[in-house]
């Protein structure tokens, strides 16, 4: 599955996207998995109140299942306009 990072999530993790092999059932499970990888992930995902999630380019909640999902994106609250 493609995992994308934007804004300071991208800067903290150090890459804009990566291919992730996972059996995580939900976005929350995936976050747990990523947190366990390295310090930079733990740091990026330390405050989930400041993290938004999109699954296949739709905004979703953290408990969304990952079945059949091709793309997950993590980013801070949006500041357009």
């Amino acid at each position, binding site marked *: 599955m493609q995992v994308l990072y934007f*804004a300071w999530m991208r800067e903290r993790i150090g890459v804009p996207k990566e291919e992730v092999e996972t059996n995580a059932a939900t976005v929350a499970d995936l976050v747990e998995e990523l947190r366990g990888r390295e310090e930079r992930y733990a740091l990026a995902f330390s405050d989930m109140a400041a993290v938004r999630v*999109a699954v296949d*380019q*739709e905004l979703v909640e953290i408990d969304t299942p990952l079945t059949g999902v091709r793309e997950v994106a993590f*980013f*801070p*609250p*949006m500041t*357009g306009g």
Partner: protein
Amino acid sequence: MSVSVQEGDFDIGAEMAAMTAGRTDIGALVSFVGLVRDMAGGAAVSSMELEHYPGMTEKALEKIEAEARARWDLQDCRIVHRVGALEAGAQIVLVLAASPHRQAAFEAAEFIMDFLKSRAPFWKKEAGLGWVDARDSDEEALERWR
């Protein structure tokens, strides 16, 4: 449905003229233009970088526009949002809403801006100041439309 995400600037007069050309049924045309302010939060801003999520951005804006068209009697609607490097004073976003009636045009433009602010995947980084924090007031603005 008319949404553009682009690095280049936009021409408001040309966008409006394109919307009204050849028709005489529009009574009210409201535009909103957002610009890069040089004193955001009290610190001088000389430029900013606007990051977005290609693919999702267009979908999110089209969804907001479709919702506005479903709620109000709109004859046409347009959203243009710039990305990339933007200097102080530069135009960031244009929203146009055309309707037979002024209240519909005003409300639709406000609705689009309110949702665009915190529901479309854009992030601002101000030169020397870092990432712009989302504001509670922008989240609260959405309450009005529930």
